[in-house]
């Protein structure tokens, strides 16, 4: 089993819903985004095109961050999810350098969403429900807590909402798909073949778990 995500850029409109929902879902501190959009354009007027790429941790099969972590805080689970055990992370940031996709953030100090006005009740609640440790590195964990809790109830990630990453559920364009890359009959595997989806930067040799249908 290997969890993966497919993002159809033909359907994605770059609305940022995935990024904002992720902030909410994980009570992310200001300045930390586990998912975000990259913008670029190609061509010359009037035949120019804008490109929007939603990016998040690629949960690489050959994860450079796992290799780089001296404390084994960054780990790859059997289901393919790459996650960080904050209790083991010492904030050395070797992983930030090692990750070729720049999807990790070092949480250096506490900031307020309304600067100078104190923490909101939401931020205080987040400290209890989903604490992040200052001095550690943060990144997307494929909503593994949702996956684990959902599977414990017999639910199927990618099919049942309660067991599916929040960014997949929230996408108003239904551009995201989630499922088992190792299962050739899973919806995601079928769609990857049908739409000829690609991995970003295969030349890095990391074998990413995020696939894209180019728009």
């Amino acid at each position, binding site marked *: 089993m290997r969890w993966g995500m497919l993002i*159809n850029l*033909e*359907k*994605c*409109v*770059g*609305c*940022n*819903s995935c*990024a*904002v*929902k992720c*902030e*909410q*879902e994980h009570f992310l501190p*200001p*300045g930390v*985004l586990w998912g*975000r*959009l990259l*913008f670029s*354009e190609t*061509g*010359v*007027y*009037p035949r*120019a*095109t*804008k*490109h*929007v790429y939603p990016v998040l941790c690629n949960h690489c099969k050959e994860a450079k961050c796992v290799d780089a972590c001296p404390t084994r805080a960054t780990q790859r689970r059997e289901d393919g999810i790459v996650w960080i055990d904050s209790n083991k992370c010492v904030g050395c940031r070797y992983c930030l350098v090692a990750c070729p996709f720049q999807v990790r953030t070092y949480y250096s100090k506490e900031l307020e*969403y*309304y*600067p*100078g*006005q*104190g923490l*909101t*009740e*939401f931020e205080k*609640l987040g400290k209890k*429900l989903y604490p992040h440790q200052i001095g550690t590195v943060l990144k997307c964990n494929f909503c593994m807590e949702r996956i684990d809790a959902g599977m414990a109830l017999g639910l199927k990630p990618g099919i049942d*909402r309660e067991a599916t990453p*929040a960014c997949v*559920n*929230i*996408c*108003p*364009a*239904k*551009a995201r798909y989630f499922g088992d890359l190792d299962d050739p009959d899973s919806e995601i595997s079928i769609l990857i073949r049908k739409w000829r989806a690609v991995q970003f930067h295969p030349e890095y040799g990391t074998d990413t778990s995020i696939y894209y249908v180019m*728009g």
Partner: protein
Amino acid sequence: MGIVENDRERYRKVFGERDKQKDHWVHSICSLCYNECAIRVRVLDGKPIAIEGVPDSDRGAQGGLCARGVSALMDWYNPNRILYPVKRTNPKKGLYEDPKWQRISWEEAFDVITDKLTAARKKDPRSAFFAFTPGPTGGMRANVSFYRFMMAFGGSGASGGPGVMCGASAHHLGALQYAAWDIIPDYRYCNYVLRCGGNEGWGGGRSASTSIRMAAAARERGLKMKVMDPQGFTVATKGEEWIPILPATDIAVFLAIANLIVNEIGIYDKEYLRHKTNGAYLVGPDRLYVRDAQTKKPLLFDEADGKVKTYDDPTLTHPAIEGKYTAQGLACQPAFVLIKEHLKQYQPDWASTISTVPAATIRRLARELVDEARIGSFIEIEGVKVPYRPACVVGYKGLQTHQNSFHQYSAMHQINILLGNQDVCGGLLGSGAARSLGYAGTDGFKYAPFGGVDGMLTPGPWPIGQAAWPPRKVADAGTAMNFSDVLSHSSSNIYPYAEDWEELWTKAGRTFEPAVFFTYGANTLMNNTRPESAAKFLGQVPFSFALQPFHNETTEGFCDIVLPESHYLETLDISSAFGVTYNYPLGMDKFSFHVRMPVTAPTGEARDIQDVMNDLADRVGIRPTYNARLDDFYTFRKCRQAGTNREIPSIIDTKDIVTNIEFVDRILKYHFGAERGLEWFRDNGFMNWNKRPEECYWRWFIQARVPIYFEGVEADREDTKEKAGKIGFDLNWDYFTALTSYFPSVIHTELPPDSEYDLFFISQRDPLMTYRFTAQNPYINQVASFNPFTYNIAMNVETARTKGIKEGDSICLENHWGDKITGNVKLTQLIHPRVIAAVGLGSWAKGNPISRGKGVNPNALIRYDQHHFCPISGSAEPTVRVKAYKNTQSEVKLTK
């Protein structure tokens, strides 16, 4: 018990037990844009902690939700919310003033407001101004709870927010052509869209999440979308072709396409023209309808038996759209003959010179539209045979917000009429559901458009006031401060915020002076024109007050009292379930009926608008009339009575004193039966029932025609010229013509072609922004800062090179009146070389510390006067000619 305690006690009776749960989900309705999607909110220990869409509902993105909707949670926790009534202690009003708010009680606030409103009403109710627009607590609340209060009071309406530069023409023609507030492609079946402005399907504009979902599915299905727009970095990113065009010149392309379709290609929907438009109405030498001598009804020629008949003659079977006839002793022709001849002057080469769109492209678009529309074809939808026209031309803001917008938007609709695609499968649909055959369980919730005056399409339920048909009679000036008396076809327009308002109003006799300004949802100062101009009017109003959840530039600069409105997550609102000709449900989506439920108890002393307006209505003595206006709306009375004297049972009597909670319960039971009242919806969330093809594709099931010939406009020309001219309007009266014609916008004529003000400055909608208020949300601000087009001024790379401007430079934009703004440049290939663009932001309110100073305010360069608005629809011309140069000052200053 005090005012607030009474509210809270009523709340506890209905929601108290529910709120005792530790961790639960509540169904409600979003309010972060007009679409008002269904949402579900997770509440933990009384606090909302997550928002998402509703998977089983078609209202929105079926479980998905856009970033604005998700971000609303952070607004609920915003420490800058208004939680108590406050009064101004700084007597000085004006831009950038600190009001020095002081907390007061609801009793004190109501006493002062009641005195002011009562005195104004006694003297002249029109002296009270009601400025509103959909704001942070939802679109329909402004339209129903607030607007109906204004009607009952007899006050004056003034554009509160972006109405004048938003949908003045779109909603006018939406009513005339679709019996709906707006239009949207039938994404489920449409194969080809020519989109000209408006970012539906991409996240900007109206119908946000719903249209994102529908358009994405359509792209997956193979929808081809061409985007004709001055900039190519919004919705054009999802198109297969971007066709850059100069602002306000779409009209030339549309007229050339229509000419090609009618006079060259020769394939258009003749049956549609015959039976569903006034193209078959006979027009005499005076260009007006030839009418029956007795009944005054317009006449048509029936080719079936060679007789002249009234439009509603039951024997009429084959109205002529070609030929010459004699009726009532007059030589006459079907209106379509005049149109066909009139169009011949509009050649692709001519249109290309004006618009910069190549003539070959115009020819190709015309051909593609005709080929893709499959004129004459039918399709069976759920066992019902309906016309199939899977192609359309669609647009919105940008297209219809110009000085020439009535004709420009009509020219777009003219193409759709020729394709016969209006409210048929695959074509262009009215937004929402213009027709409902009723909820099967009770036969309630039933309404429909109908053929009204002269057999023309008249909407059923209408969100605000009177729909565009039939138009008001032209009246003498002096009854309306926005001159909607003399400009009888306009609803919202640039007055009283325009530069020449004083002069015109003085000539109109100054029959009354503004005494009270009451604003809801709106940010009048920022959303209409340059703040200085709006401030000139607001500064002369002796007493201003607002009902708002957040402060803005208008409250801080000019309001004497601000009442705290409860956050939308704290309100019980039924109006947002009744925006049926507004936004939902779209196409063959289900009728997913939701109620905006409070997910938590209101905070501080914030109150629901309906309860506030009820209390004010009691105090001012207008409750019976207010009840009647609300009752008309929620019973769909007008359209249910259309053409009959049928008595429609009421929901509330004029004498009833009901609270918001009771009223919502009664409305639900009225339509859905005794068992489906407020408590049922509280416990069950929402209900679905399927939309039928006869409801979605109602056009051929309703006896009504739409105008392709604007005889009403033609008929009013001389009267308008005389009455408006008397007070100083010197407009191009040729504009009042029945034939959709080319008129250039003033931005193309007011300066010489080689003027140094060589650029057209436009404002584009951003998917993260609803007006300015979402910029205050820290979630939104954070992701917006990654988007190079949100806070910067977009400029073509080559244009910048010729001006010595580089990426990231601070530049100054200056109009020919000498107004200036500054901002940072984003260079792009995705914009017409003669156009620059920015999102409307640039706030300075102290109550909005996150958005303060971010982005630019394009409106600061706008100067409206009688030559900068559409004389028919009232739409403003917000595009301005500017010159751009490097800013030599080191810092951008937005505040004084």
